[in-house]
């Protein structure tokens, strides 16, 4: 990310707000500590100097567009992950493409605010450049397309009991806080089954059965829509390796129904797990 990116984005946000092209502009602002960032929604051209765009912007901001629906066009900074999230929201009929105005930036990956190490989600990133945008600021960046299935390989090679123990241990630490769901752009249901009023859909006893059921249901429900942004894993306060399940599904879909690269890509075709063909693979039947 270039040194003057913040200034360029501020200038664009000011112009877009002043001209009335957008009603608000979603980006980040500094938080209390050095290198800590927090999402911000700017409504006035006088406030654009709050914006900062650099290698410490760890949150995915695209989903904040949902709470601005109906207020006019929504501007936002769009890295690869934001652009894929917007594609996801458009495909899920949550927003229409013309409801958002994307100021695209090429992204070289974010760093951990507390140590400066590259974020895991960025090290696994397949699209650093936006896949859709209304304008670009700065140059596009190289796409290294790193191998992201290392952990899936490791878990697949386990004996069934070992694998079971791995996932039981993982879900036993789930806090049932639903941060994974709330930051996920593919989790855009108006009402989640976990919030169902009728008692019994999801036990509230914080037991392993409940957290495992929650984790697996969420993984399946987002399976062919996951944009691999890794926000669930970043947001999880307990550090659950949630992307293992998502990466596993992406690769399985590729192998069974492929070619498939992941959700939120314009060229991905129909969502594989929600379209039906008589010649679909049924190797599990």
């Amino acid at each position, binding site marked *: 990310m270039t040194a003057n990116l913040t200034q360029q984005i501020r200038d664009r946000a000011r112009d877009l707000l002043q001209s009335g092209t957008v009603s608000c502009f979603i980006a980040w602002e500094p*938080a*209390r*500590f050095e290198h*800590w*960032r*927090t*999402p*911000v*929604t700017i409504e006035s051209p006088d406030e654009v100097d709050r914006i900062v765009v650099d290698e410490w912007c760890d*949150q995915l901001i695209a989903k*904040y567009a949902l*709470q601005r629906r109906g207020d006019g066009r929504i501007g936002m900074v769009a890295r690869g992950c934001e652009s894929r999230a917007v594609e996801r929201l458009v495909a899920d009929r949550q927003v229409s493409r013309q409801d958002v105005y994307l100021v695209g930036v090429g992204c070289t990956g974010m760093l951990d605010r507390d140590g400066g190490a590259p974020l895991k989600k960025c090290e696994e990133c397949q699209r650093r450049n936006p896949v859709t945008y209304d304008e670009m600021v700065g140059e596009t960046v190289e796409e290294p397309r790193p191998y992201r299935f290392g952990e899936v390989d490791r878990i697949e090679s386990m004996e069934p009991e070992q694998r079971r123990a791995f996932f039981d*241990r*993982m879900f*036993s*630490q789930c*806090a*049932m*806080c*639903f*941060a994974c*769901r*709330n*930051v996920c752009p593919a989790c855009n249901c108006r009402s989640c089954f976990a*919030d169902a*009023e009728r*008692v*019994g859909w999801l*036990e*509230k*006893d*914080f*037991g392993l059965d409940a957290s495992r059921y929650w984790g697996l249901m969420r993984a399946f429900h987002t399976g062919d829509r996951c944009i691999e942004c890794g*926000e669930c894993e*970043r*947001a999880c*306060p*307990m*550090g659950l390796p949630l992307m293992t399940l998502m990466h596993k599904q992406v690769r399985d879909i590729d192998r069974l129904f492929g070619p498939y690269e992941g959700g939120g890509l314009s060229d991905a075709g129909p969502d594989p797990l929600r379209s039906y063909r008589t010649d679909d693979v049924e190797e599990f039947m």
Partner: protein
Amino acid sequence: MIIDKRDICALLDAIGRDEQVYVPGSVAGVTQFVEHEPGVEPLLDVRTTKVPPKELLFPKAERLYRWKTHEGHLSIEQADVASRPFTVFGMRPCDVASVERLDQVFLTKGYVDEFYQARRQAATLVALACERTDPTCFCDSMGGSPTRAPGADVVLRDRGDSYRAQAQTERGQRALDAWRAAAPDAVRDDEPGEAPDAGDDARVTCSLTVDMDGVAQAMPGLYESPMWDDIADTCVTCGTCTFVCPTCYCFDISQDTRAAEGSRYRCWDSCMFVTYTQMAGGHNPRADKAPRVRQRFMHKLSYFFDRYGENLCVGCGRCIADCPAGVDITRVIDRVGAEAAAMRGEVAVDG
């Protein structure tokens, strides 16, 4: 009493022969209080554990009673409220302060929660004073201190290669006597003439500070402030802040129903969740994010103060560190102060 650090494990092994001992540990990379296992060194250098020790006194889920119907007859079996004695070893002063808040809720004002009371009476709290603080620590702005834990039965102070243990209650004195009897080789008496150490508020301080003066009083006047919409804009209303908070005590009562039998249990709930205020008829007074966000901060910084004379925030900083969206209670406090000053007509002056 002095305990050499190399003997801590032996001491815990000895205490653990008579009762359960919980110590800072790590499970799947998550620091939390775990039952001490013989020979396993506790993580006493961790300052605030990721998960607070709250659930040792107030479990995430707790059975209240079981019921069963048989040939038209209903029988109810009450859950056992008795708790065996246990020790929580190595609680930081903020976490000890959080227990004092929970005591207010569950034991005072004419309401005694028998489940909480049973655990509380069975617990010996051994604090470990802080020699350093994390950037997100601000206990000394919230009426606490890194070096003092007045609610603890025993307080440990780091002396480099050893800890000095001092009893602060009768229970604490009995604990030290029991430690001496159970592990005579792991503990020794204080140096002759060594004065009691009451902690020193000036020696260890938090770099993060907030001004709480007038905050509790100002907040009701800010009920309609647009600041809650701003904060709600950023907040994703997950339950992280409430579940890592050592003082959040809200619970729901749910049930596990299996045909002719089942149980009722109470379980942690979160005011961040839309279901928290969902009513049977469909109305939800806090269906939107902003009222939920406001409720949490009002409760932490104003409502609890009105009722108990203390803040419900002890300044441990867990919610700041773990919020996926970067919402920061200390920035909320700053903002309350600024809004209140603006309402009083004061002009903020820089420098």
